[in-house]
């Protein structure tokens, strides 16, 4: 990669304790298990998977908003270098300024009792980044303009805004502290299609303009295909495949990625019945199957898949896949 790595996870696991287990080891849910991920500075990195795949938890762990049980996350923006597992109080405060989150639901994320100006200014005040009110206002206006909100908008309350406008307010709030790394968690999922395109275009423009790095979490593969330059696919807390967007969508190597791609409803009415249907549902992380986590639904599972968990191995330039049979399956299709 030509760009230096901004943030990376090594063997990252996030465990949540379960009740019980008076005798023997304490039971836990592995929401994220042994994840290695590298996000280059200035990239738009997509993270996809079904609900329960652990994508949100991974995003939060990279913000130090979920507990890191094993492994570590390294952040290096050229000015500071942090190991997130052992971050002191002061450093954590500084990290909050550099890494921010945009939420899914623009209706729930904004306080109805604060004006838009106060909503956007709050991070500055909490973090003490500005020394005077005038400076705060200046900064708020600047960031609001970037998000296509005008001065008139700043005086109003969130209820006066539509979904698309609210999401632009959330984006402004996330950007105001001057972060380097943004986690956008399903940031367009609650929006109508006509508005969704507008917000996606805005995120892309801001990213290029301000040189930000995005971790874009989504369940919608078509959206990810359009905005991200690199994609990782998660299943039951593991990354099963990661590749540059074009490679992943043209040459998916993991059977789960292929099934996900095939399940997207095509706009062509004559494609009916062509869906490669996946049986069953994602298993509960409290009781994961042995071996490969996808084996319970995988049409290609054989004995080894039920015993041994595959690890991520290189399958091309920047392309990694965790499947025992990917080479075999590739040779079959070619």
């Amino acid at each position, binding site marked *: 990669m030509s760009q230096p790595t901004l943030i990376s996870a090594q063997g990252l696991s996030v465990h949540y304790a379960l009740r019980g287990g008076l005798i023997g080891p304490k039971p836990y849910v592995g929401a994220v298990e042994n994840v290695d991920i590298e996000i280059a500075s200035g990239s738009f990195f997509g993270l996809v998977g079904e609900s329960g795949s652990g994508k949100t938890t991974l995003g939060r762990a990279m913000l130090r908003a979920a507990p890191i049980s094993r492994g570590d996350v390294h952040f290096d923006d050229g000015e500071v270098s942090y190991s997130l597992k052992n971050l002191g109080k002061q450093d954590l405060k500084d990290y909050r300024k550099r890494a921010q989150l945009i939420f899914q639901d623009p209706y729930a994320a904004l306080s109805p009792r604060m004006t838009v100006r106060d909503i956007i200014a709050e991070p500055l005040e909490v973090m003490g980044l500005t020394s005077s009110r005038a400076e705060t206002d200046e900064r708020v206006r600047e960031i609001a303009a970037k998000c296509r909100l005008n001065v008139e908008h700043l005086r109003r309350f969130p209820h006066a805004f539509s979904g698309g406008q609210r999401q632009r307010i959330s984006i402004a709030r996330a950007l105001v502290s001057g972060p380097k790394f943004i986690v956008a968690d399903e940031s367009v999922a609650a929006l109508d*299609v006509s508005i969704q*395109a507008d917000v996606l275009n805005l995120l892309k423009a801001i990213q290029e303009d301000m040189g930000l790095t995005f971790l874009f979490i989504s369940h919608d593969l078509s959206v990810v295909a359009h905005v991200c330059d690199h994609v990782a696919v998660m299943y039951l807390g593991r990354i099963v495949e990661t590749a540059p967007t074009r490679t992943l969508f043209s040459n998916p190597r993991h059977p789960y990625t292929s099934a996900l791609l095939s399940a997207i409803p095509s706009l062509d009415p004559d494609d009916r019945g062509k869906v490669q249907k996946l049986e069953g549902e994602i298993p509960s992380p409290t009781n994961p199957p042995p071996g490969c986590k996808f084996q319970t639904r995988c049409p290609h599972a054989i004995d080894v898949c039920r015993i041994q968990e595959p690890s991520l191995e290189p399958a091309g330039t920047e392309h990694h896949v965790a499947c025992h049979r990917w080479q075999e399956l590739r040779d079959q299709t070619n």
Partner: protein
Amino acid sequence: MSRLIDVENLTLQFDTDEGRITAVDNVSFSLEAGEVMGLVGESGSGKSVTAKSLMKLNPRNAVYGPDTRITLHLEDGPVDVMSLQNDTEMKIVRGGSISLIFQEPMASFAPAISIGDQMVEQLMIHTDFTKAQSKELSIEMLDRVGISDPSTRFGQYAFELSGGMRQRAMIAMALSTKPKLLIADEPTTALDVTIQAQVIDLMKDLVTEFGMGIIFITHDLGVIAQTADKVAVMYLGKLVEQGEVRDVIRRPAHPYTRGLLAALPTLDDIDAPLTPIPGDIPSPLERPSGCVYHTRCQEVIGPRCSAEAPQFLQVDTNHAAACHIHDASEGAA
């Protein structure tokens, strides 16, 4: 095929503190038995309200327009839905001949009553079955929609089932009364794509098996392309385009439908720019004059768009759109 339902000039307004809001404006369509109609539109377009008014399922402040006529064609003769008054009469359309599946399967089951008891309850209301017969049919329906171990599931509660499973149970419940018309209000929106594909498949099988009509409400044109026979597109309570699914998706005749399709990210060309429809959906309190879409339309042809509401015009066989660009007199002028 035989005609199942006729909706003519459906107009529905709501009395609110801020004034009277028009939710549905002069909408007409019809559906044959065994046909799937997709009803597409963004939030606030009035698609759910339209579907619910077929069951007269609207809050007390709803006011129907005087010309509204909804006729349900049953074996015993046509039923004028608008004339139904009390709960007893309404049973015909509410859960009897028409069933409704909601978007959020968690919210549509009562949390403290088992799935089975809820299924039995509605069968006891709508059919002459005994309790034992109702239970038997319910378990059979659960099995039919692909729920494994149906007799155990019968006794479980909604929280014990996964999202996809709940939506299957919801479908089983909606179909157990053998409705003539099934209204599915965003039935797959809350589900993951792989589960969505399973549910869509299931619904297709059931249409073939039971021969009922389906009104499939969604904002996802991909889902429409994969399920519907015909499509109706709504914007701000108005029907703007109607036609066979292939015609509407391949040759959209209304600028709004074109805009929706252009805004949709597809996998065919991932480098294509996403084109949003400019502006926001106007508040129902500030309905634009003339064509309701003119404030966001990129194909405005003149002052006529903001002055005069366009008529629904045929652009092809079974394909119509409400837009002045299709008015021949405009082209000649």
